[in-house]
Protein backbone atom coordinates (compact mmCIF):
# COMPACT_ATOMS: atom_id res chain seq x y z
CA UNK A 1 0.00 0.00 0.00
CA UNK A 2 2.50 2.64 1.13
CA UNK A 3 6.23 2.20 0.94
CA UNK A 4 9.17 4.44 1.82
CA UNK A 5 12.35 3.88 -0.15
CA UNK A 6 15.55 5.29 1.31
CA UNK A 7 13.67 8.42 2.28
CA UNK A 8 15.44 11.64 3.25
CA UNK A 9 13.26 14.63 3.98
CA UNK A 10 13.22 17.88 5.90
CA UNK A 11 12.69 21.60 5.71
CA UNK A 12 14.96 23.68 3.51
CA UNK A 13 18.50 22.51 4.07
CA UNK A 14 17.69 20.78 7.33
CA UNK A 15 17.27 17.03 7.07
CA UNK A 16 14.85 15.50 9.56
CA UNK A 17 14.24 12.03 8.16
CA UNK A 18 17.46 10.19 7.44
CA UNK A 19 17.09 7.22 5.18
CA UNK A 20 13.82 5.49 6.05
CA UNK A 21 12.75 2.20 4.53
CA UNK A 22 9.31 0.99 5.49
CA UNK A 23 6.21 -0.67 4.18
CA UNK A 24 2.67 -0.61 5.50
CA UNK A 25 0.42 -3.19 3.87
CA UNK A 26 -3.20 -2.72 2.83
CA UNK A 27 -5.45 -3.14 5.85
CA UNK A 28 -2.61 -2.52 8.29
CA UNK A 29 -2.79 -0.41 11.42
CA UNK A 30 0.61 1.03 12.27
CA UNK A 31 1.61 3.37 15.07
CA UNK A 32 4.45 5.85 14.71
CA UNK A 33 6.04 6.30 18.10
CA UNK A 34 9.12 8.13 19.24
CA UNK A 35 10.19 11.11 21.33
CA UNK A 36 9.37 14.73 20.45
CA UNK A 37 11.43 15.91 17.52
CA UNK A 38 12.13 12.42 16.26
CA UNK A 39 10.40 13.18 12.95
CA UNK A 40 6.95 11.65 13.35
CA UNK A 41 4.99 14.63 12.09
CA UNK A 42 7.50 15.21 9.31
CA UNK A 43 7.04 11.59 8.27
CA UNK A 44 3.26 12.05 8.14
CA UNK A 45 3.71 15.18 6.04
CA UNK A 46 6.00 13.33 3.68
CA UNK A 47 3.71 10.33 3.36
CA UNK A 48 0.81 12.64 2.53
CA UNK A 49 2.78 14.27 -0.29
CA UNK A 50 2.89 17.68 1.41
CA UNK A 51 6.69 17.66 1.66
CA UNK A 52 8.88 16.69 -1.24
CA UNK A 53 11.64 14.27 -0.23
CA UNK A 54 15.23 15.44 -0.53
CA UNK A 55 16.11 11.91 -1.58
CA UNK A 56 14.21 8.69 -1.99
CA UNK A 57 10.54 8.14 -2.65
CA UNK A 58 7.16 7.55 -1.09
CA UNK A 59 5.32 4.97 -3.16
CA UNK A 60 1.56 4.62 -2.79
CA UNK A 61 -0.04 1.75 -4.69
CA UNK A 62 2.90 1.71 -7.06
CA UNK A 63 2.87 5.47 -7.70
CA UNK A 64 5.17 8.20 -6.43
CA UNK A 65 2.97 10.41 -4.22
CA UNK A 66 4.80 13.56 -5.25
CA UNK A 67 3.93 12.89 -8.87
CA UNK A 68 0.25 12.19 -8.31
CA UNK A 69 -2.24 14.98 -9.10
CA UNK A 70 -3.39 16.75 -5.92
CA UNK A 71 -7.03 15.73 -6.21
CA UNK A 72 -6.15 12.13 -6.99
CA UNK A 73 -3.99 12.04 -3.87
CA UNK A 74 -6.72 13.59 -1.72
CA UNK A 75 -9.13 10.85 -2.80
CA UNK A 76 -6.70 8.15 -1.66
CA UNK A 77 -4.99 9.60 1.40
CA UNK A 78 -6.76 11.57 4.12
CA UNK A 79 -4.86 13.30 6.89
CA UNK A 80 -6.16 14.24 10.27
CA UNK A 81 -3.79 16.85 11.68
CA UNK A 82 -3.50 18.11 15.23
CA UNK A 83 -6.57 20.26 15.10
CA UNK A 84 -6.83 21.84 18.51
CA UNK A 85 -6.44 25.24 16.91
CA UNK A 86 -9.15 24.71 14.34
CA UNK A 87 -11.11 27.96 14.33
CA UNK A 88 -12.55 28.16 10.82
CA UNK A 89 -15.98 29.83 10.82
CA UNK A 90 -17.98 26.76 9.81
CA UNK A 91 -20.60 24.60 11.41
CA UNK A 92 -19.83 20.89 11.72
CA UNK A 93 -21.81 19.93 8.64
CA UNK A 94 -20.13 22.53 6.44
CA UNK A 95 -16.77 21.49 7.80
CA UNK A 96 -17.29 17.80 7.08
CA UNK A 97 -18.52 18.64 3.60
CA UNK A 98 -15.06 20.09 2.85
CA UNK A 99 -13.90 16.48 2.69
CA UNK A 100 -15.83 16.14 -0.55
CA UNK A 101 -13.90 18.87 -2.37
CA UNK A 102 -11.41 16.43 -3.97
CA UNK A 103 -14.34 14.87 -5.82
CA UNK A 104 -15.57 18.13 -7.30
CA UNK A 105 -14.72 19.30 -10.79
CA UNK A 106 -13.19 22.72 -11.43
CA UNK A 107 -16.61 24.31 -11.88
CA UNK A 108 -18.50 22.46 -9.19
CA UNK A 109 -19.12 24.49 -6.06
CA UNK A 110 -22.33 22.94 -4.80
CA UNK A 111 -22.67 19.51 -3.22
CA UNK A 112 -24.76 16.85 -4.98
CA UNK A 113 -26.99 14.18 -3.51
CA UNK A 114 -24.16 11.70 -3.06
CA UNK A 115 -22.11 14.23 -1.09
CA UNK A 116 -25.02 14.94 1.23
CA UNK A 117 -25.63 11.22 1.82
CA UNK A 118 -21.96 10.66 2.52
CA UNK A 119 -21.73 13.53 4.99
CA UNK A 120 -24.82 12.11 6.67
CA UNK A 121 -23.17 8.70 6.87
CA UNK A 122 -19.84 9.85 8.32
CA UNK A 123 -21.60 12.08 10.83
CA UNK A 124 -23.56 9.15 12.18
CA UNK A 125 -20.51 6.87 11.92
CA UNK A 126 -18.60 9.22 14.23
CA UNK A 127 -21.65 9.80 16.42
CA UNK A 128 -21.88 13.55 15.94
CA UNK A 129 -25.08 13.84 13.88
CA UNK A 130 -26.66 15.86 16.65
CA UNK A 131 -23.90 18.47 16.43
CA UNK A 132 -24.28 19.16 12.71
CA UNK A 133 -25.44 22.76 13.08
CA UNK A 134 -23.02 23.70 15.85
CA UNK A 135 -20.16 26.07 15.03
CA UNK A 136 -16.76 24.36 15.20
CA UNK A 137 -15.40 26.75 17.77
CA UNK A 138 -18.15 25.88 20.24
CA UNK A 139 -17.15 22.21 20.26
CA UNK A 140 -15.18 20.54 23.03
CA UNK A 141 -11.79 19.06 22.21
CA UNK A 142 -13.22 15.57 21.87
CA UNK A 143 -16.12 16.63 19.66
CA UNK A 144 -13.78 18.63 17.49
CA UNK A 145 -11.54 15.65 16.96
CA UNK A 146 -14.56 13.55 16.00
CA UNK A 147 -15.59 16.21 13.48
CA UNK A 148 -12.07 16.17 12.15
CA UNK A 149 -12.21 12.41 11.75
CA UNK A 150 -15.58 12.68 10.03
CA UNK A 151 -14.11 15.13 7.54
CA UNK A 152 -11.22 12.80 6.79
CA UNK A 153 -13.68 9.93 6.26
CA UNK A 154 -15.78 12.06 3.90
CA UNK A 155 -12.77 11.91 1.57
CA UNK A 156 -13.39 8.13 1.26
CA UNK A 157 -9.67 7.46 1.56
CA UNK A 158 -7.80 4.16 1.24
CA UNK A 159 -5.18 5.35 3.71
CA UNK A 160 -5.83 7.42 6.79
CA UNK A 161 -2.93 9.28 8.41
CA UNK A 162 -3.55 10.47 11.95
CA UNK A 163 -1.26 12.92 13.68
CA UNK A 164 -1.76 12.51 17.40
CA UNK A 165 -5.49 11.79 17.23
CA UNK A 166 -5.76 11.55 21.00
CA UNK A 167 -3.69 14.56 22.04
CA UNK A 168 -5.33 16.70 24.75
CA UNK A 169 -8.26 14.30 25.08
CA UNK A 170 -9.56 12.74 28.28
CA UNK A 171 -9.34 8.98 28.61
CA UNK A 172 -12.97 8.48 27.60
CA UNK A 173 -12.52 10.35 24.34
CA UNK A 174 -9.15 8.70 23.74
CA UNK A 175 -10.76 5.29 23.85
CA UNK A 176 -13.75 6.47 21.80
CA UNK A 177 -11.51 7.75 19.00
CA UNK A 178 -9.23 4.72 19.06
CA UNK A 179 -12.18 2.30 19.05
CA UNK A 180 -13.65 4.13 16.07
CA UNK A 181 -10.36 4.00 14.26
CA UNK A 182 -9.95 0.29 14.96
CA UNK A 183 -13.46 -0.34 13.66
CA UNK A 184 -12.57 1.48 10.47
CA UNK A 185 -9.42 -0.61 10.22
CA UNK A 186 -11.48 -3.79 10.65
CA UNK A 187 -13.58 -2.66 7.70
CA UNK A 188 -10.44 -2.47 5.55
CA UNK A 189 -9.10 1.08 5.94
CA UNK A 190 -5.31 1.24 6.22
CA UNK A 191 -4.19 3.42 9.10
CA UNK A 192 -0.95 5.04 10.19
CA UNK A 193 -1.19 7.00 13.42
CA UNK A 194 1.30 9.09 15.34
CA UNK A 195 0.78 8.18 18.97
CA UNK A 196 2.46 9.54 22.05
CA UNK A 197 0.77 7.15 24.40
CA UNK A 198 2.77 3.94 24.11
CA UNK A 199 0.07 1.95 25.85
CA UNK A 200 -2.59 3.01 23.38
CA UNK A 201 -0.21 2.02 20.60
CA UNK A 202 0.33 -1.35 22.24
CA UNK A 203 -3.37 -1.89 22.76
CA UNK A 204 -4.63 -0.95 19.31
CA UNK A 205 -1.93 -1.30 16.66
CA UNK A 206 -0.63 -4.38 14.87
CA UNK A 207 2.65 -2.74 14.08
CA UNK A 208 4.72 -0.21 15.99
CA UNK A 209 7.33 1.92 14.26
CA UNK A 210 9.79 3.46 16.67
CA UNK A 211 11.48 6.59 15.34
CA UNK A 212 14.46 8.24 16.93
CA UNK A 213 16.43 11.14 15.54
CA UNK A 214 14.93 10.69 12.06
CA UNK A 215 15.78 7.01 11.83
CA UNK A 216 13.76 3.89 12.38
CA UNK A 217 14.98 2.20 15.54
CA UNK A 218 12.68 -0.73 15.52
CA UNK A 219 9.63 -2.07 13.72
CA UNK A 220 7.39 -4.89 14.82
CA UNK A 221 4.59 -5.96 17.10
CA UNK A 222 4.15 -4.29 20.48
CA UNK A 223 5.94 -7.15 22.18
CA UNK A 224 8.93 -6.73 19.85
CA UNK A 225 9.23 -2.97 20.05
CA UNK A 226 8.28 -2.14 23.60
CA UNK A 227 11.40 -3.47 25.27
CA UNK A 228 12.66 -1.85 28.39
CA UNK A 229 16.18 -1.18 27.19
CA UNK A 230 15.15 0.17 23.80
CA UNK A 231 12.54 2.53 25.21
CA UNK A 232 14.82 3.73 27.99
CA UNK A 233 17.55 4.52 25.50
CA UNK A 234 15.37 6.23 22.89
CA UNK A 235 13.32 8.32 25.31
CA UNK A 236 16.17 8.96 27.75
CA UNK A 237 14.11 8.00 30.76
CA UNK A 238 13.54 4.99 32.87
CA UNK A 239 10.45 2.89 32.48
CA UNK A 240 9.48 -0.61 33.31
CA UNK A 241 7.36 -2.91 31.21
CA UNK A 242 4.74 -5.34 32.53
CA UNK A 243 2.26 -7.57 30.82
CA UNK A 244 -1.34 -6.44 30.78
CA UNK A 245 -3.24 -9.17 32.62
CA UNK A 246 -6.25 -9.09 30.27
CA UNK A 247 -4.70 -8.78 26.84
CA UNK A 248 -1.19 -9.97 27.72
CA UNK A 249 0.17 -7.01 25.73
CA UNK A 250 3.15 -5.06 27.06
CA UNK A 251 2.37 -2.03 29.18
CA UNK A 252 4.75 0.77 29.94
CA UNK A 253 5.07 2.35 33.39
CA UNK A 254 7.31 5.23 34.30
CA UNK A 255 9.54 4.64 37.32
CA UNK A 256 11.24 7.13 39.53
Amino acid at each position, binding site marked *: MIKLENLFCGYGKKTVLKGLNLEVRTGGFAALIGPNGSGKTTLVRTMSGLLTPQKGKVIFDGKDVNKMPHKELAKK*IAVMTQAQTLTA*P*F*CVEEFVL*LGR*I*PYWGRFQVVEDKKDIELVERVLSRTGISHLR*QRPLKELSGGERQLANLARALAQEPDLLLLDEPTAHLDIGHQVQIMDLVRDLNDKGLTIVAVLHDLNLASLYCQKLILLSDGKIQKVGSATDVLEQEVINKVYGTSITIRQDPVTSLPFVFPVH
Partner: protein
Amino acid sequence: MESSRGNIGWVFLLMAILLAVMLFSLAVGAVEIPIRRIFYLLTENCESPERAILLKVRLPRIFLGLGVGGGLAISGVILQGMLRNPLVEPYTLGISGGAALGVCLNIVLGGSAILGSLSTPLSGFLGALGVIFFVYTISSSRGGMRLSRLLLIGVMVSFMASSLIMLVMALSETRDLHGIIFWIMGSLEEPNPWLIKTALFVSVFGAVISFIYSADLNALSLGEEEAFHLGVRVERMKRIIFVIASVVTGCCVAVSGVIGFIGLVVPHLMRLLVGGDHRILVVASFISGAAFLILCDTVARIIIAPMELPVGVITGLVGGVLFIYALSRKDYSF
Protein backbone atom coordinates in the same frame (compact mmCIF):
# COMPACT_ATOMS: atom_id res chain seq x y z
CA MET B 1 -27.69 21.15 3.44
CA GLU B 2 -30.17 22.87 5.69
CA SER B 3 -28.02 25.78 6.71
CA SER B 4 -26.94 26.67 3.18
CA ARG B 5 -30.50 26.47 1.94
CA GLY B 6 -31.51 28.98 4.59
CA ASN B 7 -28.69 31.22 3.47
CA ILE B 8 -29.80 31.25 -0.15
CA GLY B 9 -32.89 33.02 1.17
CA TRP B 10 -30.58 35.77 2.35
CA VAL B 11 -29.15 36.13 -1.13
CA PHE B 12 -32.61 36.72 -2.57
CA LEU B 13 -33.40 39.23 0.15
CA LEU B 14 -30.16 41.12 -0.52
CA MET B 15 -30.95 41.07 -4.22
CA ALA B 16 -34.33 42.67 -3.50
CA ILE B 17 -32.63 45.29 -1.34
CA LEU B 18 -30.19 46.04 -4.14
CA LEU B 19 -33.04 46.56 -6.62
CA ALA B 20 -34.88 48.78 -4.16
CA VAL B 21 -31.76 50.86 -3.57
CA MET B 22 -31.24 51.24 -7.31
CA LEU B 23 -34.80 52.44 -7.79
CA PHE B 24 -34.49 54.83 -4.88
CA SER B 25 -31.30 56.20 -6.33
CA LEU B 26 -33.00 56.72 -9.70
CA ALA B 27 -35.90 58.52 -8.08
CA VAL B 28 -34.27 61.06 -5.77
CA GLY B 29 -32.11 64.06 -6.48
CA ALA B 30 -32.47 67.64 -7.64
CA VAL B 31 -35.35 66.48 -9.81
CA GLU B 32 -37.61 64.01 -8.03
CA ILE B 33 -39.00 61.36 -10.34
CA PRO B 34 -41.81 59.13 -9.03
CA ILE B 35 -41.07 55.43 -9.34
CA ARG B 36 -44.01 54.69 -11.59
CA ARG B 37 -42.78 57.33 -13.96
CA ILE B 38 -39.28 55.80 -13.92
CA PHE B 39 -40.63 52.59 -15.39
CA TYR B 40 -42.53 54.55 -17.99
CA LEU B 41 -39.51 56.65 -18.93
CA LEU B 42 -37.16 53.69 -19.13
CA THR B 43 -39.46 51.52 -21.20
CA GLU B 44 -41.02 54.07 -23.54
CA ASN B 45 -38.84 55.74 -26.08
CA CYS B 46 -39.69 59.37 -25.61
CA GLU B 47 -37.79 62.62 -25.52
CA SER B 48 -37.89 64.32 -22.16
CA PRO B 49 -35.38 65.99 -19.86
CA GLU B 50 -36.27 63.54 -17.13
CA ARG B 51 -35.36 60.60 -19.33
CA ALA B 52 -32.03 62.27 -20.06
CA ILE B 53 -31.37 62.70 -16.33
CA LEU B 54 -32.12 59.04 -15.73
CA LEU B 55 -30.06 57.67 -18.59
CA LYS B 56 -27.19 60.13 -18.69
CA VAL B 57 -26.73 61.07 -15.03
CA ARG B 58 -28.23 58.65 -12.57
CA LEU B 59 -28.03 55.27 -14.31
CA PRO B 60 -24.29 55.49 -15.09
CA ARG B 61 -23.59 56.33 -11.44
CA ILE B 62 -25.62 53.34 -10.35
CA PHE B 63 -23.77 51.04 -12.70
CA LEU B 64 -20.43 52.34 -11.51
CA GLY B 65 -21.59 51.90 -7.90
CA LEU B 66 -22.55 48.32 -8.76
CA GLY B 67 -19.13 47.58 -10.19
CA VAL B 68 -17.01 49.38 -7.62
CA GLY B 69 -19.05 48.44 -4.54
CA GLY B 70 -19.35 44.81 -5.58
CA GLY B 71 -15.73 44.62 -6.72
CA LEU B 72 -14.26 46.05 -3.52
CA ALA B 73 -16.46 43.80 -1.41
CA ILE B 74 -15.47 40.55 -3.14
CA SER B 75 -11.80 41.57 -3.14
CA GLY B 76 -12.10 42.04 0.61
CA VAL B 77 -13.81 38.69 1.11
CA ILE B 78 -11.34 36.64 -0.86
CA LEU B 79 -8.28 38.37 0.62
CA GLN B 80 -9.58 37.97 4.16
CA GLY B 81 -10.36 34.34 3.41
CA MET B 82 -6.98 33.63 1.88
CA LEU B 83 -4.89 35.51 4.46
CA ARG B 84 -7.13 34.36 7.31
CA ASN B 85 -6.86 37.80 8.79
CA PRO B 86 -9.92 39.87 9.63
CA LEU B 87 -8.15 43.21 9.30
CA VAL B 88 -7.18 42.80 5.68
CA GLU B 89 -8.96 44.82 3.07
CA PRO B 90 -8.13 45.40 -0.60
CA TYR B 91 -6.24 48.58 0.28
CA THR B 92 -4.04 46.82 2.84
CA LEU B 93 -1.89 45.41 0.08
CA GLY B 94 -0.91 48.87 -1.06
CA ILE B 95 -2.96 48.82 -4.24
CA SER B 96 -4.82 52.01 -3.45
CA GLY B 97 -1.59 53.69 -2.40
CA GLY B 98 0.00 52.81 -5.71
CA ALA B 99 -3.00 54.03 -7.65
CA ALA B 100 -3.13 57.29 -5.70
CA LEU B 101 0.57 57.86 -6.27
CA GLY B 102 0.11 57.27 -9.99
CA VAL B 103 -2.74 59.75 -10.16
CA CYS B 104 -0.84 62.31 -8.08
CA LEU B 105 2.13 62.19 -10.41
CA ASN B 106 -0.17 62.42 -13.39
CA ILE B 107 -1.86 65.53 -12.06
CA VAL B 108 1.37 67.24 -11.07
CA LEU B 109 3.19 66.35 -14.26
CA GLY B 110 0.21 67.39 -16.37
CA GLY B 111 -0.48 64.06 -18.05
CA SER B 112 -3.95 65.18 -19.03
CA ALA B 113 -2.40 67.54 -21.60
CA ILE B 114 -1.29 64.48 -23.56
CA LEU B 115 -3.95 61.88 -22.88
CA GLY B 116 -6.98 63.96 -21.92
CA SER B 117 -9.45 62.72 -19.35
CA LEU B 118 -8.31 59.12 -19.70
CA SER B 119 -4.95 59.98 -18.17
CA THR B 120 -6.28 59.82 -14.59
CA PRO B 121 -7.71 56.29 -14.62
CA LEU B 122 -4.81 55.10 -16.71
CA SER B 123 -2.17 56.46 -14.36
CA GLY B 124 -4.14 55.10 -11.41
CA PHE B 125 -4.25 51.66 -12.92
CA LEU B 126 -0.58 51.75 -13.82
CA GLY B 127 0.28 52.79 -10.26
CA ALA B 128 -1.82 49.91 -8.92
CA LEU B 129 -0.21 47.44 -11.33
CA GLY B 130 3.26 48.62 -10.32
CA VAL B 131 2.52 47.97 -6.67
CA ILE B 132 0.90 44.60 -7.37
CA PHE B 133 3.94 43.50 -9.31
CA PHE B 134 6.34 44.78 -6.66
CA VAL B 135 4.50 43.20 -3.72
CA TYR B 136 4.07 39.93 -5.58
CA THR B 137 7.71 39.65 -6.59
CA ILE B 138 9.07 40.45 -3.15
CA SER B 139 6.72 38.13 -1.28
CA SER B 140 7.28 35.18 -3.60
CA SER B 141 10.26 32.95 -3.22
CA ARG B 142 11.17 29.61 -4.72
CA GLY B 143 9.01 27.85 -2.19
CA GLY B 144 5.97 29.87 -3.28
CA MET B 145 4.11 32.88 -2.03
CA ARG B 146 4.43 33.55 1.68
CA LEU B 147 1.21 35.05 2.94
CA SER B 148 2.44 36.65 6.15
CA ARG B 149 5.17 38.30 4.13
CA LEU B 150 2.70 39.43 1.48
CA LEU B 151 0.67 41.21 4.11
CA LEU B 152 3.62 42.94 5.78
CA ILE B 153 5.10 44.06 2.49
CA GLY B 154 1.71 45.34 1.36
CA VAL B 155 1.38 47.40 4.51
CA MET B 156 4.89 48.82 4.11
CA VAL B 157 4.28 49.67 0.47
CA SER B 158 1.11 51.49 1.54
CA PHE B 159 3.12 53.60 3.96
CA MET B 160 5.79 54.29 1.40
CA ALA B 161 3.19 55.32 -1.15
CA SER B 162 1.46 57.70 1.23
CA SER B 163 4.79 59.28 2.15
CA LEU B 164 5.56 59.79 -1.51
CA ILE B 165 2.11 61.26 -2.06
CA MET B 166 2.75 63.70 0.76
CA LEU B 167 6.06 64.57 -0.81
CA VAL B 168 4.44 65.21 -4.17
CA MET B 169 1.69 67.25 -2.55
CA ALA B 170 4.19 69.34 -0.59
CA LEU B 171 5.97 70.21 -3.79
CA SER B 172 2.89 70.88 -5.92
CA GLU B 173 0.84 73.99 -6.59
CA THR B 174 -2.51 74.81 -4.98
CA ARG B 175 -4.44 74.11 -8.17
CA ASP B 176 -3.01 70.60 -8.41
CA LEU B 177 -3.50 69.98 -4.70
CA HIS B 178 -7.22 70.44 -5.08
CA GLY B 179 -7.36 67.89 -7.88
CA ILE B 180 -5.30 65.37 -5.92
CA ILE B 181 -7.37 65.68 -2.76
CA PHE B 182 -10.63 65.33 -4.64
CA TRP B 183 -9.44 62.29 -6.50
CA ILE B 184 -8.22 60.61 -3.32
CA MET B 185 -11.57 61.20 -1.62
CA GLY B 186 -13.24 59.19 -4.35
CA SER B 187 -16.44 59.72 -6.28
CA LEU B 188 -18.78 57.78 -8.53
CA GLU B 189 -19.06 60.66 -10.95
CA GLU B 190 -17.51 59.45 -14.16
CA PRO B 191 -18.41 60.97 -17.50
CA ASN B 192 -16.80 58.30 -19.63
CA PRO B 193 -19.24 55.41 -20.28
CA TRP B 194 -16.44 53.20 -21.54
CA LEU B 195 -14.68 53.36 -18.18
CA ILE B 196 -17.89 52.52 -16.35
CA LYS B 197 -18.43 49.50 -18.56
CA THR B 198 -14.84 48.36 -18.02
CA ALA B 199 -15.07 48.66 -14.23
CA LEU B 200 -18.39 46.81 -14.19
CA PHE B 201 -17.13 44.07 -16.48
CA VAL B 202 -13.89 43.53 -14.54
CA SER B 203 -15.61 43.31 -11.20
CA VAL B 204 -18.33 40.94 -12.43
CA PHE B 205 -15.62 38.81 -14.00
CA GLY B 206 -13.71 38.85 -10.71
CA ALA B 207 -16.85 37.83 -8.85
CA VAL B 208 -17.40 34.88 -11.19
CA ILE B 209 -13.82 33.64 -10.76
CA SER B 210 -14.07 34.10 -7.00
CA PHE B 211 -17.26 32.06 -7.00
CA ILE B 212 -15.62 29.27 -8.97
CA TYR B 213 -12.85 29.17 -6.37
CA SER B 214 -15.18 29.54 -3.40
CA ALA B 215 -15.09 25.87 -2.38
CA ASP B 216 -11.29 25.94 -2.49
CA LEU B 217 -11.36 29.12 -0.42
CA ASN B 218 -13.37 27.25 2.19
CA ALA B 219 -10.65 24.61 2.27
CA LEU B 220 -7.96 27.27 2.48
CA SER B 221 -9.63 28.88 5.47
CA LEU B 222 -8.57 25.79 7.44
CA GLY B 223 -4.93 26.57 6.65
CA GLU B 224 -2.59 25.85 3.77
CA GLU B 225 -1.62 22.39 4.96
CA GLU B 226 -5.22 21.28 5.40
CA ALA B 227 -6.12 22.71 2.00
CA PHE B 228 -3.33 20.70 0.41
CA HIS B 229 -4.69 17.54 2.01
CA LEU B 230 -8.06 18.33 0.49
CA GLY B 231 -6.55 18.32 -2.97
CA VAL B 232 -6.34 22.09 -3.47
CA ARG B 233 -3.41 23.30 -5.54
CA VAL B 234 -2.56 25.84 -2.91
CA GLU B 235 0.23 27.82 -4.57
CA ARG B 236 -1.61 28.27 -7.83
CA MET B 237 -4.76 29.22 -6.03
CA LYS B 238 -3.06 31.86 -3.86
CA ARG B 239 -1.67 33.44 -6.98
CA ILE B 240 -5.06 33.48 -8.69
CA ILE B 241 -6.78 35.01 -5.67
CA PHE B 242 -4.10 37.65 -5.29
CA VAL B 243 -4.21 38.62 -8.95
CA ILE B 244 -8.01 38.72 -9.08
CA ALA B 245 -8.31 40.83 -5.94
CA SER B 246 -5.56 43.16 -7.14
CA VAL B 247 -6.81 43.72 -10.64
CA VAL B 248 -10.40 44.24 -9.52
CA THR B 249 -9.33 46.67 -6.81
CA GLY B 250 -6.92 48.41 -9.17
CA CYS B 251 -9.68 48.94 -11.71
CA CYS B 252 -12.17 50.18 -9.14
CA VAL B 253 -9.71 52.62 -7.61
CA ALA B 254 -8.49 53.84 -10.99
CA VAL B 255 -12.01 54.75 -12.07
CA SER B 256 -13.55 56.01 -8.85
CA GLY B 257 -10.71 56.95 -6.50
CA VAL B 258 -10.07 55.62 -3.03
CA ILE B 259 -13.51 54.85 -1.64
CA GLY B 260 -12.75 53.34 1.73
CA PHE B 261 -14.27 50.88 4.09
CA ILE B 262 -16.43 48.80 1.75
CA GLY B 263 -13.82 46.09 1.32
CA LEU B 264 -13.44 45.79 5.07
CA VAL B 265 -16.92 46.24 6.46
CA VAL B 266 -19.14 44.52 3.93
CA PRO B 267 -17.37 41.12 4.17
CA HIS B 268 -17.63 41.19 7.97
CA LEU B 269 -21.29 42.16 7.96
CA MET B 270 -21.99 39.38 5.49
CA ARG B 271 -20.09 36.85 7.61
CA LEU B 272 -22.36 37.79 10.49
CA LEU B 273 -25.39 37.35 8.29
CA VAL B 274 -24.69 34.26 6.18
CA GLY B 275 -21.73 32.58 7.95
CA GLY B 276 -18.28 31.61 6.76
CA ASP B 277 -19.14 29.56 3.68
CA HIS B 278 -17.48 31.40 0.80
CA ARG B 279 -19.85 29.95 -1.77
CA ILE B 280 -22.56 32.15 -0.35
CA LEU B 281 -20.33 34.80 1.16
CA VAL B 282 -18.89 35.83 -2.22
CA VAL B 283 -22.31 36.26 -3.81
CA ALA B 284 -23.83 38.00 -0.80
CA SER B 285 -20.85 40.36 -0.52
CA PHE B 286 -20.98 41.37 -4.15
CA ILE B 287 -24.68 42.20 -3.97
CA SER B 288 -24.55 44.01 -0.66
CA GLY B 289 -21.32 45.84 -1.46
CA ALA B 290 -23.03 47.21 -4.55
CA ALA B 291 -26.20 48.11 -2.67
CA PHE B 292 -24.21 49.74 0.12
CA LEU B 293 -22.15 51.91 -2.20
CA ILE B 294 -25.10 52.97 -4.34
CA LEU B 295 -27.03 53.91 -1.23
CA CYS B 296 -24.13 55.85 0.27
CA ASP B 297 -23.59 57.65 -3.01
CA THR B 298 -27.24 58.59 -3.20
CA VAL B 299 -27.13 59.95 0.32
CA ALA B 300 -23.93 61.87 -0.47
CA ARG B 301 -25.70 63.34 -3.49
CA ILE B 302 -28.85 64.54 -1.75
CA ILE B 303 -27.93 65.28 1.84
CA ILE B 304 -26.61 68.80 1.31
CA ALA B 305 -27.96 69.33 -2.25
CA PRO B 306 -27.12 71.08 -4.48
CA MET B 307 -23.65 70.43 -3.03
CA GLU B 308 -22.29 66.90 -2.92
CA LEU B 309 -20.42 65.20 -0.08
CA PRO B 310 -17.51 62.90 -0.86
CA VAL B 311 -18.99 59.41 -0.84
CA GLY B 312 -16.11 58.12 1.31
CA VAL B 313 -17.41 60.23 4.19
CA ILE B 314 -20.71 58.37 4.10
CA THR B 315 -19.28 54.89 3.55
CA GLY B 316 -16.91 55.32 6.49
CA LEU B 317 -19.51 56.74 8.87
CA VAL B 318 -22.42 54.49 7.97
CA GLY B 319 -20.20 51.41 7.62
CA GLY B 320 -18.44 52.00 10.92
CA VAL B 321 -21.63 52.57 12.85
CA LEU B 322 -23.34 49.55 11.29
CA PHE B 323 -20.36 47.38 12.00
CA ILE B 324 -19.97 48.37 15.63
CA TYR B 325 -23.70 47.92 16.12
CA ALA B 326 -23.61 44.45 14.57
CA LEU B 327 -20.57 43.44 16.62
CA SER B 328 -22.16 44.50 19.87
CA ARG B 329 -25.34 42.63 19.06
CA LYS B 330 -23.88 39.25 18.28
CA ASP B 331 -21.03 37.13 19.48
CA TYR B 332 -18.76 37.32 16.48
CA SER B 333 -15.29 36.10 15.80
CA PHE B 334 -13.60 35.76 12.48
